[in-house]
């Protein structure tokens, strides 16, 4: 970290390298110093602690998918990990790298957001924690200072096993970039009403985001077609999608509506099965 701090903008931390090595090839002169952090023990490992499920930032997507704890407690994180790149990139790519790169379409972000994940940041002057939502500042921009690194992700204990569903929509099935990512999570009260709904969206705004108004519209309601559709419609009003060569903003709005409805519906089904 001292190395990163003293070299400031000309230094980069190297995690899995699936994005950074490509960047270096495109602009070889931009970086003077690479610090390999992928093997740091304090940034690795998956474990259940008092606070919840701790995922080291240097955990690869393949490790996440193979982890019994993650499969059991947060299966949607496994599902989301499975949509990242292909086997070879999942073997190299880390969850921390995916979040720090901070592209709007980062596949790991929505399912983590939906479970109110917390990011722990390590700096030369100690550690701090922020809700993952605040970690993202803009496209390719996080709150990390040059001397700081993302150390770990924590899924709070109360959200382990929270009914959740994730859908990635891309232009093909293998190795796809997301046009839209949607993750939903919710509880059902004893009287069958929705509690603590979360709707997290990717690739439809400068950063991965919550659809807070949509969540509010669903909170306390029975999850029927009317309430779920209404939430999906409200979610569309909250996003700021762009037109690009992959898809129009309008199409992304359609997808958000359809996929928000589907993820909420599936989450509610899981909840009622429990």
């Amino acid at each position, binding site marked *: 970290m001292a190395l990163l701090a003293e070299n400031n903008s000309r230094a980069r931390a190297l995690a899995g390298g699936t994005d950074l090595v490509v960047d270096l090839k495109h602009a070889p002169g931009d970086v003077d110093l690479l610090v390999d952090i992928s093997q740091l023990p304090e940034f690795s490992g998956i474990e259940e602690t008092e606070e919840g499920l701790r995922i080291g930032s240097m955990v690869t997507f393949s490790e996440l998918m193979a982890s019994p704890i993650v499969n059991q407690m947060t299966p949607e994180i496994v599902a989301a990990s499975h949509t990242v790149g292909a086997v070879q990139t999942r073997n190299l790519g880390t969850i921390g790298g995916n979040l720090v790169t901070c592209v709007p379409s980062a596949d790991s972000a929505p399912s983590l957001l939906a479970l109110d994940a917390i990011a722990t940041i390590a700096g030369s002057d100690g550690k701090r924690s922020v809700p993952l939502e605040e970690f993202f500042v803009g496209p390719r921009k996080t709150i990390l200072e040059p001397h700081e690194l993302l150390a770990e992700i924590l899924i709070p204990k109360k959200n382990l096993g929270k009914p959740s569903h994730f859908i990635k*929509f891309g*232009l*093909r099935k*293998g*190795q796809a*970039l997301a046009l839209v990512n949607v993750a939903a999570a919710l509880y059902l009260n004893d009287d069958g009403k929705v509690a603590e709904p979360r709707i997290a969206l990717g690739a439809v705004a400068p950063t991965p985001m919550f659809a807070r108004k949509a969540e509010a519209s669903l909170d306390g309601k029975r999850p029927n077609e009317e309430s779920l559709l209404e939430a999906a419609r409200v979610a569309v009003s909250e996003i700021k999608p762009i037109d690009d*060569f992959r898809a129009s903003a309008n199409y992304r709005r*359609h997808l958000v509506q359809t996929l928000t409805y589907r993820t909420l519906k599936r989450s509610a089904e899981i909840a009622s099965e429990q």
Partner: protein
Amino acid sequence: MKKRGRGIACMWYPIGFTVAANPSAATVKINTDGTATLLTGTVETGQGALTVLGQIAAETLGIATDDVHVVSADTDATPMDTGAIASRTTYVTGNAIIKAAEQAREILFEAAAPMLSVKPEQLEAHDRKIQVIGFPQQYKTIGEVAHHSEIVIGRPAIGSGSYNPPTVEMDPETGQGKPFSTYVYATQIADVEVDDETGEVEVLRIVAIHDCGTPINPMLVEGQIQGGISMGIGFALQEEILFKDGKQVNPNLTNYIMPTSLDMPELEVDMVDNYDPTGPFGAKGAGEPTAVPTAAAIMNAIYDAVGVRITSLPATSEKVLSAILEQKAA
């Protein structure tokens, strides 16, 4: 909701160049042990041409595939060839090889005739033997004959030949003429599922039945069909070079969307039983046509599933959804 649909498309496709001469030449050298070397100027581009051409030479000489070694693609050493283009290799180069091999074989027949006390025209090459037609028990092995011809008589069994498909110039006013020697035919049927809320098209299964005349090597023909279909699926649903102000915006494999293993449906491919008397052992060709009807079959299946006619390719999920929404609005 996901809706199922099926679509059929058939096609025809010519072998070789449009009118223009596109000859191939070949040389076949029979070794004194009865194995052979084939020289061809074509290039193996993955389709299995050299294997098929070796099989054609072997068949003409009555020997096995493995008995022929194929030398290719060196302008210093191999005869001219118009090349791996226009689905012409099996047909055009194949016919040239038959002529070359027949010429070499004729030398063996002439050497064997006195050995078997018959006339050369009474002989055939079969099962690594030169034998008397109708009397297969009267034979000499091809190795014995080749050795005798080269070492005793002093006449090495080497043959060369060339072939150019016969065509007739097209009339400039009406286009009437005979631009190609022969054509192949095919049908593909696609079974698809269309999500009418996202426009996503999933191809579940494609049945493809192709005519290539005699399949010289059915395994390689199947490979051509399967590969052609994957290219056809990309053309149908995903692939497009996009421009902004005249510059490509997706010149990479991240954003140029070609099918991955996960995008491929179940394929059932087979061949029509057919024989073209103008082709080598009845064969025509199989390279390009395999990619031709796929997109049309998929578009017809989309229509069958959700009732929208896609008139411009590729049928991206966005395009399909907007056609569905337009139809609902109308």
